[in-house]
């Protein structure tokens, strides 16, 4: 067990600056209007630094810098860009603890997660796209004896990216790695709930990239996000967030006739078939843990397995075990490596979760575990903590249909295979799903019948680079984490070449 020292105390691994400006053109640039906002740590509810409250003037400066840098960066070789991505990955690895403390302090997540998941994955995503861009070939076709079609991948130029707050560094890297690998310059706006950890990262990696290739502008959506997303000086906008803002961003993109990839959340079903409980063995233990993963990252994951669907014959026994397992989840100081459930990322997030627990009760769902805000006392008293919560109900209830983004799971039963698939697909969303069965055929068929972009079979919450991630239905457009994502950041240039000396003969 290790308890990392809190930022601001003598032994802390990271020291936040009292104030952060924007990172534009390879240097810190104060916001034009001179405004800043406080960044609050959800660990204790107290402000710990100030961050630029940017406006369209700052977005313009960042776009100027990006446009200045884009032509040369776009002409670098894949070898050169891959080397840059690999160097950034090395720096993340070398500063894992420092970045983990920064991430936990900014977001509230238990530090075992950034130490063992967010940061190793971020480094690996850079390395994956460094490899992918090296391995990417163009294309050619010999259309006839004299006519060749050559296809080249070209960068789009300058792209905008808007990042969510649930995995502030990792979600930024998911978007940055393919964009930079493909040779684009980026203007990135972090979430206003978690603007600081990415700035700690840029302090470490900023000099690896040529000035202006990556620009980070902080601020609120209406003041900084909109001028970025609606600018006619970007060639693509990427966004992770909710449906209304997603639609708004697609509307802005349509006005500029540019592509947009949007990842808009989910309400993922985690399906446990009867044969899971055939034996009380290590697989059963794994499946039980698979249920409890709803509390991973305090439920603040777009693919949170927030609907558990249990086969009727095992309903009572499986659920009983899962409740006991959930009770063991250790909630506490997010800087303690033994802590499994940390703080929700913001006060409004806490309030929203509590409002959903309230509507769940009003809808007639049965509260089986948790359901209360937690006061951890001492220095953590002002933090935003919620008990892991288990509801039993039916799929028409709003707690089964809306992404609560908290440690809350809604459980129901199913009669047979068709019933399971029908309930699981009865949702607006289609980002993730889980299938648990010892029977390979059942697992395979369910995986194919579920309308979701990512179906975990006999595992959950694994996000390795290489496995395509993205949504069906209202969960969005586009794929990340796979070389497919390069295509979201590239133009296709077709060079159609005639090697014939003869006129066409039309005129």
């Amino acid at each position, binding site marked *: 067990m290790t308890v990392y020292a809190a930022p601001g105390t003598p032994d802390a691994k990271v020291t936040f600056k009292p104030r952060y400006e924007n990172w534009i053109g390879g240097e810190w640039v104060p916001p034009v209007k001179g405004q800043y*906002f406080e960044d*609050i740590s959800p660990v204790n509810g107290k402000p710990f630094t100030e961050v630029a*409250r940017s406006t369209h003037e700052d977005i313009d400066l960042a776009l100027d810098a990006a446009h200045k840098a884009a032509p040369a960066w776009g002409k670098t070789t894949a070898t050169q860009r891959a080397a840059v991505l690999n160097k950034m990955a090395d720096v993340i690895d070398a500063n894992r603890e420092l970045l983990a403390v920064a991430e936990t302090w900014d977001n509230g997540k238990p530090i075992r997660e950034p130490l063992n998941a967010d940061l190793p994955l971020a480094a690996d995503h850079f390395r994956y796209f460094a490899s992918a861009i090296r391995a990417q070939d163009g294309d050619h076709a010999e259309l006839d004896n004299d006519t060749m079609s050559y296809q080249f991948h070209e960068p789009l130029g300058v792209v905008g990216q808007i990042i*969510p*707050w*649930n995995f502030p560094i990792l979600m930024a890297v998911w978007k940055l790695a393919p964009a930079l690998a493909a040779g684009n310059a980026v203007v990135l706006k972090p*979430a*206003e*709930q978690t603007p600081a950890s990415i700035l700690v990262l840029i302090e470490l990696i900023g000099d690896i990239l040529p000035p202006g290739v990556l620009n980070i502008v902080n601020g*609120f*959506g*209406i*003041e900084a*996000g*909109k001028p970025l997303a609606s600018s006619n000086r970007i060639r693509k906008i990427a966004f*992770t*967030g*909710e*449906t*209304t*803002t997603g*639609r*708004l961003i697609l*509307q802005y993109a349509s006005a500029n006739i540019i592509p947009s990839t949007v*990842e*808009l*959340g*989910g*309400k993922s079903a985690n399906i446990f078939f009867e044969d899971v409980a055939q034996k009380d063995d290590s697989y059963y233990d794994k499946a039980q843990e698979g249920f409890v993963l709803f509390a991973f990252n305090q439920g*603040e994951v*777009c693919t949170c397995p927030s609907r558990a669907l249990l086969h009727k014959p095992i309903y009572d026994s499986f659920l009983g075990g899962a409740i006991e397992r959930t009770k063991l989840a250790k909630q506490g100081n997010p800087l303690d490596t033994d802590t499994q459930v940390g703080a929700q990322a*913001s*006060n*409004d*997030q806490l*309030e*929203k979760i*509590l*409002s*959903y627990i*309230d*509507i769940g009760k*009003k*809808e*007639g769902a049965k509260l089986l575990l948790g359901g209360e*805000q937690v006061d951890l006392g001492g220095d953590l008293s002002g933090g935003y903590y919620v008990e892991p919560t288990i509801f039993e*109900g*039916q799929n*028409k*209830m*709003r707690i089964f*249909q*809306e*992404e*609560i*983004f908290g440690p809350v799971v809604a459980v129901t039963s199913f009669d047979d295979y068709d019933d399971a698939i029908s309930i699981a697909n009865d949702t*607006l*969303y289609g980002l993730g799903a889980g299938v648990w069965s010892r029977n390979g055929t059942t697992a395979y068929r369910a995986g194919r019948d579920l309308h979701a972009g990512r179906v975990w079979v006999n595992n959950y919450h694994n996000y390795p680079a290489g496995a395509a991630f993205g949504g069906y239905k*209202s*969960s969005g457009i586009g794929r990340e984490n796979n070389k497919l994502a390069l295509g979201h950041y590239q133009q296709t240039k077709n060079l159609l070449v005639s090697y014939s000396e003869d006129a066409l003969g039309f005129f």
Partner: protein
Amino acid sequence: MTDLKDPPAVAAVEASITVPGETRSRVALTQTTVELLRSLWEEHGPLMFHQSGGCCDGSSPMCFPAGEFITSDQDVLLGRLDVAPAGEPEQLIDFWISAEQFEYWSHTALLIDVVKGRGGGFSAEAPRGVRFLIRSELMDSFTV
């Protein structure tokens, strides 16, 4: 401002009924919300709401300058709210939700409250350090 120690939020303004065939208002505002909306109206001009779903800031009502968000046949006008003080000219705010989301939400009535918060989409109140929050009540029709 609302926190857990405050008394339950109560409706100060109820929306007019805009869903065809219905007889009960679906949206209401707390007094705190009314005052915030009047202030945002002074800053941005006429306003609108679109109820969001999914992901980080989902389930939050997003407040925009009127017309900023383009609604379509895929949206339902859930209600129209007048936030003007008594005797003053109307200040009407339309509250929209996507038609597909309405199907799953139709058994609940929404009370829009305000809590301390940080950011959230492109919603107009975010720079004030507050967020609109939905509190829900059951419509009479809901049966399990």
